[in-house]
């Protein structure tokens, strides 16, 4: 934490350009910072802010179609901008290492984990193969990977995401580098897994006194990891300060707005009448993919005008439950009721009016919108299919829907999805669901691919629509901050079963089911000491997968 240590990395007026349509467009407009030995710098900003680009540039590396157009990157006195490829290769992997966002994609599927681990030390002549192998096993042990002797001899696909992420951190450590770039290393992980990886990374960076650049869009995460934080916005530096100052007293408006996102919360609604007929009732359903059972005796109700958040880790059966409600995956057992009327389990047997009742909004708006159709056509299709409107009337209805999602019809109706931003695409997904005039919408991780500010906009829009149209939502998410913001009831799922359900206020108040408790306590908080306190309180064996396995 001391600032008097040796200067390791000095970046001055770094300018980076990216090629698009035959011209070079600026990506980074002059970034400068210093990094000292053993220091951790957090780089934070939304997607497109240039965090990863700066992270890679700190290694003297640019992706295809990107170039460093100005400034200098000095690592231990060597200017990486002007250094030769061979000079840089001698540093990369040996003195500067990289941990990528998706370990599953960044490990070569064709080789064993440990062979990839030992590659850098052997190629750089740091260690022999045997020594490096035993060192790898030692690192796996320190990173608290299960079966450290054996896990490296597996192929990447045989190891879970959180374990791979730790194996990749071990790989980055293989040559004991002076600097590691962590590029969103926990973004793709579940909260309970994330906490384990965070603890492991922080621990090992401290043990070896390694300097690090920690790139993330999650403030609470960076608060746990970094000594200093630097905020970026669209390639510009916003501000830089040490973590405590940055959290308690951000200077710039943009930083303050980032900090404020988590404060969005809907007012509490009165509980539904005891005899009210729920819009959707899921009763004792079991479901299977082929012969593999995935849901066991799942039941919950969704009442008019309310939001039920279904939370749980990936693979817990949240999306499968949604597929059962829509009839895409007919349950093997149980009943689905809409407003007290039992529905055919298979969507093919439902009437058009029954189909209209349940609409979906998907996580990846990118893939859920037909890239060849204009916005008007995408929204127009359900308008025509369910509403029977054609020509002028159809267009008028599409424009009305675009107004509802706060997008100017004249400007957007003839655009293609590729001409929209991520948040706008998600709004089109909402408009398409609304076009059917449903009473119930399933939102499947609709905000998890979006930046926090954009996600908040989507949540506010959904809340507004709920108030205006009396919609009910089934909100599938793994993000508990989102749950806190908009849910009325919460259903917690694990391994295809509902482990706990109830009104939100009760869910966020102890006592919980042990699993709910684990989920809740694993959500990083803005307090920089949160991780330390949690580890003190629980011990390293009672966080993450290790704790889940004990249940």
């Amino acid at each position: 934490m001391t600032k008097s240590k040796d200067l390791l990395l000095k970046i001055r007026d770094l300018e980076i350009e990216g090629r698009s349509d035959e011209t070079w467009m600026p990506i980074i407009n002059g970034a400068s910072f210093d990094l000292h030995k053993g220091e951790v710098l957090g780089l934070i900003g939304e997607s497109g802010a240039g965090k990863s680009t700066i992270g890679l540039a700190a290694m003297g590396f640019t992706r295809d179609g990107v170039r460093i157009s100005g400034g200098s990157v000095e690592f231990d006195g060597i200017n990486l901008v002007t250094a030769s490829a061979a000079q840089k290769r001698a540093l990369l992997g040996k003195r500067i290492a990289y941990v990528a966002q998706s370990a599953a994609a960044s490990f070569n599927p064709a080789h064993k984990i440990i062979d990839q681990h030992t590659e850098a030390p052997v190629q750089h002549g740091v260690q022999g193969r045997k020594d490096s192998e035993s060192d790898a096993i030692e690192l796996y042990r320190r990173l608290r990977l299960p079966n450290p002797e054996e896990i490296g001899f597996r192929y990447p696909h045989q190891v879970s995401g959180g374990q791979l992420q730790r194996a990749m951190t071990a790989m980055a450590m293989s040559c004991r580098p002076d600097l590691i770039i962590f590029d969103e290393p926990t973004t793709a992980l579940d909260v309970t897994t994330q906490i384990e990886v965070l603890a492991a990374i922080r621990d090992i960076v401290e043990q070896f006194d390694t300097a690090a650049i920690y790139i993330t869009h999650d403030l609470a995460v960076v608060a746990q990891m970094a000594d200093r934080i630097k905020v970026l916005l669209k390639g510009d530096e916003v501000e830089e300060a040490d973590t405590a100052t940055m959290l308690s007293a951000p200077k710039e408006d943009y930083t303050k707005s980032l900090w404020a996102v988590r404060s969005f919360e809907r007012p509490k609604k009165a509980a539904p009448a005891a005899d009210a007929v729920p819009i959707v009732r899921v009763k004792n359903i079991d479901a299977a993919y082929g012969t593999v059972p995935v849901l066991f005796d799942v039941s919950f109700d969704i009442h008019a005008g309310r939001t039920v958040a279904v939370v749980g880790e990936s693979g817990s059966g949240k999306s499968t439950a949604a597929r059962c409600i829509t009839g895409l995956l007919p349950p093997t057992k149980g009943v689905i009721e809409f407003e007290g009327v039992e529905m055919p389990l298979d969507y093919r047997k439902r009437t058009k009016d029954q189909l209209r009742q349940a609409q979906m909004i998907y996580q990846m708006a990118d893939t859920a919108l037909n890239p060849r159709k204009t916005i008007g056509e995408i929204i127009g299709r359900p308008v025509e299919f369910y509403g029977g409107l054609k020509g002028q009337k159809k267009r008028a209805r599409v424009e009305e829907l675009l107004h509802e999602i706060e997008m100017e019809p004249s400007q957007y109706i003839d655009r293609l999805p590729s001409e929209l931003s991520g948040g706008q695409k998600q709004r089109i997904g909402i408009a398409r669901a609304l076009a059917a005039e449903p009473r119930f919408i399933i939102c499947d991780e609709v905000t998890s691919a979006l930046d926090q500010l954009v996600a908040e906009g989507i949540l506010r829009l959904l809340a507004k629509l709920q108030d205006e149209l009396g919609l009910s939502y089934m909100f599938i998410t793994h993000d508990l901050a989102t749950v806190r913001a908009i849910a009325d009831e919460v259903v917690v799922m694990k391994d295809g079963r509902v482990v706990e359900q109830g009104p939100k206020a009760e869910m966020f108040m102890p006592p919980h089911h042990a699993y709910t408790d684990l989920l809740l306590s694993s959500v990083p908080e803005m307090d920089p000491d949160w991780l330390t306190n949690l580890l003190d309180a629980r011990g390293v064996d009672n966080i993450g997968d290790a704790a889940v396995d004990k249940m």
Partner: protein
Amino acid sequence: MKSVGGIILQRLALGLLTLFVVSIVIFVAVNLLPGDFAEAILGQGATPEAVASIRRDLGLDQSPITRYFQWLGGAVTGDLGNSFAQANFASFAGTETGSGLGSVATQIAPRFANTMFLAMVTAAIAVPISLILGVLAALYRNSAFDRATNIFTLSSISSPEFFLAYILILFLAVLNPILPSLSNIFDGMSFSERLERTVLPALTLTLIVMAHMMRMTRAAIINLLASPYIEMARLKGIGPMRVIVRHALPNALAPIINVVALNLAYLITGVVVVEVVFVYPGIGQLFVDSVKIRDIPVVQACCLIFAAAYILLNLTADILSILSNPRLRHPK
């Protein structure tokens, strides 16, 4: 996910089924050929009686379905029947048809062996060169070397086979007589002599099959160069050659294997022109001759061998691609 053994068994069964379907197609197609052996052999002087007698002798008067099953039954037990032309010659010469001289198998076997020999020599030259050129082209992509390789392989694949053959003869046999221009090989030749005579047709074929394999190797590798694990390898400071050979190539094997198999199948089944130019006694020439004189058993047998070669090579390619996938080799 199924086990590798299960998948391989399944593919084998599918291959057999395909072969059975193809045998029906072959039989129907061959029997649709206009004219028949009796008319072809008797020529202008064909009287209805003579035609009928020959047809009776050869069993051509029986119903197509009976003949199909007789043929299929024979083929399954390894008996491909008797060559019409050889049988005719044998009866003319007074030897028994049962002596084995006229059987399709004895007629095809040496020709097939020659074809396989040529195919193997070609494969031994073409496959390594294509792979190495492909890897180098990917390594030095968009460089002068890459462009030159592309232009060279594309122009060789675009030229007619006989043209390439004559060019090679001109340069390697006529202007610089280092290789024989005729490849008439026969029994009792020493291996080295055989090899020497096979080199020119093999080189011609190499020029023809190289482009596909080389370009697929290059494309499959370049396709992977944007993947995160390649970026990771570069960020570990691994040299460009090792990045391509160790990190990209193992993941690019499946498409490469498939293209190699297709080209090897072509070497077995499609080299008639090259055989004619070099007077190489392969199965292609025999096939064309047999079609000319309507020697149906030989035509059918050749077709069946070609089909089997295609199916077998594609099957091998399939299995090798499956084995190149670590997810299948090492299930969870």
